[in-house]
């Protein structure tokens, strides 16, 4: 079932020459956990088109999934009930921004801080990306994740 909220990534590849990377791509998804699988498929394909592959891509998808899961569980959707996921190139890295429409809820203020299924999301994001940034405004929370395209490029930077 395809919803207009989900543009298909393959069209991004149109008109690209070798070495080109497409500009920012963005999707909006309904803030429901049942949307996570489709979100991951989209992000994985978009990351590949932006030149991120292999282990780096898998780690990035896991990290982005954590940010989106947090936005679904603890965030406030935009007025249309959605949250946004945006990917863009930045030098040798890809930056993903996950945006919801409400204030940031710190883990200590969440409904069930002792739950054994929660509380590890930010640790995952930090371990699996090169940079993690949290931009908090009253009307929006953005989690920005940065990842080198390839594990080799990352090793070369070290």
């Amino acid at each position: 079932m395809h919803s207009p909220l989900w543009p298909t990534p393959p069209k991004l590849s149109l008109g690209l020459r070798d070495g080109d990377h497409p500009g920012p791509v963005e999707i909006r998804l309904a803030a429901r956990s049942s949307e996570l699988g489709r979100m991951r498929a989209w992000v994985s394909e978009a990351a590949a088109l932006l030149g991120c592959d292999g282990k780096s891509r898998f780690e990035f998808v896991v990290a982005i999934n954590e940010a989106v899961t947090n936005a679904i569980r603890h965030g406030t959707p935009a007025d249309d009930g959605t949250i946004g996921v945006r990917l863009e190139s930045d030098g040798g890295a890809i930056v993903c921004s996950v945006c919801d429409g409400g204030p940031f809820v710190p883990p200590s203020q969440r409904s069930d801080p002792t739950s054994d299924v929660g509380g590890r999301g930010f640790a995952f994001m930090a371990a699996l990306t090169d940079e993690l940034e949290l931009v908090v405004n009253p009307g929006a929370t953005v989690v920005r994740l940065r990842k080198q395209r390839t594990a080799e490029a990352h090793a070369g930077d070290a």
Partner: protein
Amino acid sequence: MGYLEVNYQEIDGDVRILRVAGDVDFDAAPQLKRHIMSRVDAGDRQFIVDLSAVEFIDSTAIGVLVGALRRLDANGGSLLVVCDNEDIRGIFETVGLEHVIPLHRSHEDAFAALAHAA
């Protein structure tokens, strides 16, 4: 709902194998939790959780495994993970979880670890 499949197998002795396949994310983690906890509640104490056929795993699924492990630890039981999928193993290693949940490549290795601990 994403695709998740859990198969339960009783092995000679006290060991139980849970074979998990599919995507274990926040949407599917409650199913995994129900499967494991129903066996823990039934009195099973030795678990090998085989994640080799898992294609995706998130922190809530890891939380389910850690929760079950803690409960089993407190009752003299144990839980080991078997996984030969390098992507999934990589997540355990990068996040540092292989120090929390014992991670093995094969059932033979896991059985040897259980026998050694017994």
